[in-house]
């Protein structure tokens, strides 16, 4: 098996528990292409030298209060880390291995390569996500992990999910967004509530969880029947077409 160190921009940043740290506070920045910068300079009416920057990956760290509340709600794992944590979509990177097709802005294929890259794990990138730690045994034995995840392209083998998670891994639980996908701010109360709700669900038996799903399906059936009947009733004239006044 061969691991290829990635040269992708997202991999060149330091990391800590899967969340990257950079010299910048909050954002990662890069200069735009020289042509674009030149265009910006030409367009400047006062002929000053504008520094055009483009934010390519916005990073956020959760407030300390949120970390603390999640730790209290969910406890710590065997490594002394919190079972729950909040991560910003852009900040949470994960290994993805395999054959990559890099394209330019016009969609043209620039290159193909087989390698491991660290890329944002969740979408939407601009939302807070709550994660829960899963122990390494949840991912099976290392041998089984590599047997399941190794992909071979162009004679190169790469584990599609990266190295075996020897210290476990944090997995997605919940995306903080409104019913229509709108942004919801991360607050200690919301984070704690979600962690407590998941923990409460973990204490429910598998039978209870199954029953709840079946009840939902039955309710859905009833809702459809009621809705359909209402829809059809609305097509019916008042008093089902009978005269409003009876004449004796």
């Amino acid at each position, binding site marked *: 098996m061969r691991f290829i160190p990635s040269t992708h921009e997202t991999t060149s940043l330091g990391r800590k528990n899967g969340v990257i740290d950079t010299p910048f506070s909050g954002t990662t920045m890069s200069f735009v292409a020289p042509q674009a910068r030149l265009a910006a300079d030409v367009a400047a009416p006062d002929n000053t030298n504008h520094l055009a920057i483009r934010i390519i990956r916005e990073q956020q760290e959760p407030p300390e209060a949120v970390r603390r509340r999640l730790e209290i709600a969910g406890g710590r794992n065997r490594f002394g880390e919190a079972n729950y944590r909040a991560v910003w979509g852009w900040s949470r990177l994960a290994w993805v291995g395999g054959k990559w097709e890099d394209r330019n802005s016009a969609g043209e294929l620039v290159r193909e390569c087989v390698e491991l890259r660290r890329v944002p794990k969740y979408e939407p990138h601009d939302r807070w996500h709550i994660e829960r730690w899963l122990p390494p045994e949840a991912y099976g034995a290392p041998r089984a992990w590599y047997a399941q995840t190794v992909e071979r392209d162009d004679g190169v083998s790469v584990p599609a*999910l990266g190295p075996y998670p020897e210290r476990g891994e944090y997995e997605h639980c919940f995306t903080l967004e409104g019913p229509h996908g709108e942004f919801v701010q991360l607050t200690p109360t919301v984070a704690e509530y979600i962690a407590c709700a998941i923990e409460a669900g973990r204490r429910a038996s598998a039978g209870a969880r199954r029953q709840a799903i079946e009840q939902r399906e039955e309710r859905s059936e009833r809702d459809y029947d009621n809705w359909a009947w209402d*829809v059809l009733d609305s097509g019916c004239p008042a008093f089902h077409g009978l005269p409003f006044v009876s004449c004796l």
Partner: protein
Amino acid sequence: MTQMQNTQTIALQLEKVRDKVPLLYERDDVLLSMIQQRGDVEKVSSRNMRIPLQVNPGGKGGSYNADGGDLGRGSGTSYDVAQISPIFFRFAVEISKLVEYATNAREKAIENAAKREVANGMKQFRAFLDKVLQTAGNGVLGTIGSVSGTTLTMNTPPGAALVYVGQTIQVYDSTITTNRGSCNVVAADPISSTQTITIDALPTGTIATDVIVHDGLSGAQPTSLFGIKYHQNNATTGTWMNLNRATYPQQLQTPRVNAANSALVPGYVRLAINKVRKALGIGHLGKLIAYTSVEQEHAWENLGITISQVIKENASGSANDLDLLFSGRKTMSGVPIKSSINADQTRVDFLDLSHWGRAVIKDIDYFEVGDQTVFPIYGTSGGLSAAFIFYFDTGFQVFSDSPRSGAYIDGLARPTGY
């Protein structure tokens, strides 16, 4: 003198609800409706609909010697054409005269009986089409595991999930070549682990490994709706929308994760999602949905990393900002889950429905001859029977223009208790 017949007045009653029929049909609660609402709709004639596909990129990239070197020749993009043609489906609703008589308010009773049958019939028609949409395009609704009298024990998946009581089904041999005959389902148990179907009469020659298909299909290797297992498939042989899969083995393959009869774990989900991300590009996952069965939704809940249905049910009692979060979508590694009782119990399909669509030749409506939508039934004597019949019908086919835009996990173990 022409006598006014009951069937003519019933038609008038049905016409009152005619504009409600599409509304009842296109409701966002099953896969069929999701495709109807999110996918493209193309109006087609009886000729094949052609879907041009860019199968291979063009152009020759490389370095060259600017000091008089040869720049070489070029190439162009390769296209091919996928083709589909609509399949017609009907749903027959028959009402006996007794239904009309069993009331003391005549006009209202006739109307209600008809309306109730419209509601029930439309619901059942949608359920039937949704079940067919779970198949591999051949109309196979299940595989017989064993035969005992008129009781068929079905292999899971899909078990007995894709049939309903009263449905007429046909039995074919395992190669879908020999039609052994048809029968009616008198009982179906898709809930318990036994997954049995009881039929009224066993077609002669029926054996284990035979398959059941829906009514209306005929001949060897019949074609039905191109369902989820037709488009989400990693086969490299056979045909896909009239294209030879062997000609484009990579382009027409949907990425697959084989769970090999093990339980659903986050690693499988990440593998499948990553395969799509590599195909679509990072940052294009927003349109995906995780379409799965309630069994696998339950398996995902059992991992203890999502807010379970138990908690969501309880959270609906009061209204505050936090409850709004709970009314939101349940996700699988961030991808919204859509579960269905009809979905394969051992699969999770990641679908980008923006690549799916319908080729429609006839929208759902009453089957009509002239202006008549309700028809009399005739008895064996040639006289009228004390019943009348009406039909819903539609003609369409489901297509996908990018099989690589999805992924699927199959071979998942069912959770304990199913």
